[in-house]
């Protein structure tokens, strides 16, 4: 009753190729956006914004980045953390050199740096496939991690090896640094993430998305219908790394307020990969689901455990988090390899025919 396509006829192809053909989906999306922009920031306290919502958005963006590379194009990457780091440090250097330029411009610009680095490390993907490519991306991960420590210029020769985010403003309101409120930071991050998600959606639903999926599903056949493999794969690396870079810059400038090399280590790469697996490979909405589950889980544990009466030491929480995440991965791979996104779709299917069983 609630969710029907009956009566929604498409009279031209332009309408049929739209991303959300069903009216209910469009309404739903509008409602979510409205809530996200106009309701949530006003009813949430600082903790909710700072510790839950902002990082959720940042990780969703990173998950989208990895999804583009691994979910849509089938190129396994374990270098996500490092590419995020490239964006973060690039942004830091850019704003150090040109502090008067708006920080948001630098956040976006830093994406181009990580895109270039990503494309460079993506070159081997023409010769190397599958597991081997995963190991090649580890080379990128470890090398770049080493650079983040060993190249003092990157962190302005700061003795501690860490970077601290300076205060930057937009229309006179501080949006980064110590004086920026969670409220403003949330809105900036939300805007950037929404716009970039929209762009990613446009890409994957068009001819480029089809080229990527063709390469993922059977690259030999893709070649034989005229898709050039190297440019397609490099584009995937470039776009994915662009998104990683922006996510990294957002992470440092709008969430942590600072960073050190360890933030972008191989564990970060794994966590983003887990988000993508659990959320659903090849699904943008899945990226959000996965980020939500993997990221919010430890917070929920930390908050709920005392509520249930179990006093949990913080390190125990972390250990349980590892165990639960590990078990979740295995569970999802067994039960629904296409992740939460597929479960969501199945749910919607059931809703379409509700109250009938099929």
């Amino acid at each position, binding site marked *: 009753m609630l969710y029907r396509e009956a009566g929604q006829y498409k009279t*031209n*192809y*332009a309408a*049929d*190729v739209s*991303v959300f053909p069903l009216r209910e989906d469009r309404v739903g999306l509008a409602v979510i956006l409205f809530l996200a922009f106009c309701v949530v920031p006003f009813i949430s306290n600082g903790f909710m914004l700072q510790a839950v919502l902002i990082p959720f958005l940042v990780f969703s963006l990173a998950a989208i980045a990895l999804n583009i590379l691994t979910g849509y194009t089938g190129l396994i990457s374990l270098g996500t953390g490092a590419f995020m780091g490239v964006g973060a440090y690039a942004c830091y250097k850019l704003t150090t050199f040109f502090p008067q330029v708006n920080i948001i411009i630098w956040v976006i610009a830093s994406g181009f740096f990580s895109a270039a680095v990503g494309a460079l490390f993506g070159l081997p993907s023409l010769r190397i496939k599958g597991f081997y490519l995963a190991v090649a991306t580890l080379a990128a991960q470890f090398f770049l991690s080493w650079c983040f420590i060993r190249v003092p210029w990157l962190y302005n020769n700061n003795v501690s090896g860490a970077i601290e985010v300076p205060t930057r403003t937009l229309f006179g309101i501080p949006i980064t640094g110590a004086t920026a409120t969670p409220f403003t930071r949330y809105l900036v991050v939300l805007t950037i993430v929404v716009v970039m998600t929209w*762009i990613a*959606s*446009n*890409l994957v*639903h*068009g*001819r*480029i998305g*089809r*080229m990527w*999926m*063709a390469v*993922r*599903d*059977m690259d*030999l*056949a*893709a*070649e*034989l*219908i*005229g*898709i*050039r493999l190297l440019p397609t794969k490099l584009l995937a690396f470039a776009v994915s790394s662009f998104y990683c870079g922006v996510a990294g810059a957002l992470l440092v400038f709008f969430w942590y307020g600072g960073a050190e090399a360890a933030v972008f280590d191989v564990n970060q790469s794994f966590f983003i990969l887990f988000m993508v697996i659990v959320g659903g490979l*090849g699904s943008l909405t899945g990226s959000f689901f996965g980020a939500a589950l993997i990221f919010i889980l430890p917070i929920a544990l930390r908050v709920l455990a005392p509520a249930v009466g179990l006093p949990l030491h913080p390190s125990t929480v972390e250990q349980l988090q590892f165990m639960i995440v590990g078990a979740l991965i295995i569970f999802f791979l067994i039960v629904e390899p296409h992740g939460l996104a597929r479960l969501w779709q199945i749910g919607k299917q059931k809703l379409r025919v509700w109250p009938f069983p099929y």
Partner: protein
Amino acid sequence: MRAPSGTGTTAGETILAVENVSLAFGGVKAITDVSFDIRKGEIRAIIGPNGAGKTSMLNVINGFYWPQRGRIRFKGETRSKMRPHEAASGGIARTFQNVALFRGMTALDNIMAGRSLRMHSNFFWQLLRHGPAMREEVEHRKRVEDIIEFLEIAHIRKIPVGVLPYGLHKRVELGRALAMEPDLLLLDEPMAGMNLEEKEDMSRYVIDVNNHYGTTIALIEHDMGVVMDLSDRVVVLDYGRKIADGTPDDVKANKAVIDAYLGVAH
């Protein structure tokens, strides 16, 4: 079911010729010194017992395998080997013995993927999915829907191909090949695993494509009835060598061909 005459047997210009092609994998000789030509607008069948090198021959034409010896003349240009991208942009499309569809995509998207060569809109517009990008998407969608209607798969076009029954896979694959608007269409056992009705449908599509669009077709097929009815000329391979080349009637009466199929030692 015979294609009306006026194609094939009359001398048309050669669209593709393989000259003295030899292909070996390590010690296994797949093709030895094979030469034949395909004339524009004809339906050319490549037949032979299993393991004769037929699929390998198509792979060489496609650029998937590179022969150790010999040349390929396509549309006037001679090459010692074809590259997949050259073959595709030159107008060669193909279907595969073990269906090579993109399993993660719907039938419609698979066929749309076949339009990749012809979709050029700028990356920037792709980011926005607006303007030229959108117009191009709709325009190519129209073409693809024509193909879908022709192949009578409109009812399943939005279904992911992994879910579809085997018989429809071959049709979707044909659709993807047709989407490339090829000059030369290579079909590798398009009727394999089909019942009589499905074979009749597929034969009808093949003839229509040949008549309607003027597409030259090279087809590997085991069903002799289909071969005899559909093709203008036939080339027969056995153990990687050409043993006969001519009209279906010529080939049917050829002793070497009969021996090869009956398994007479030679």
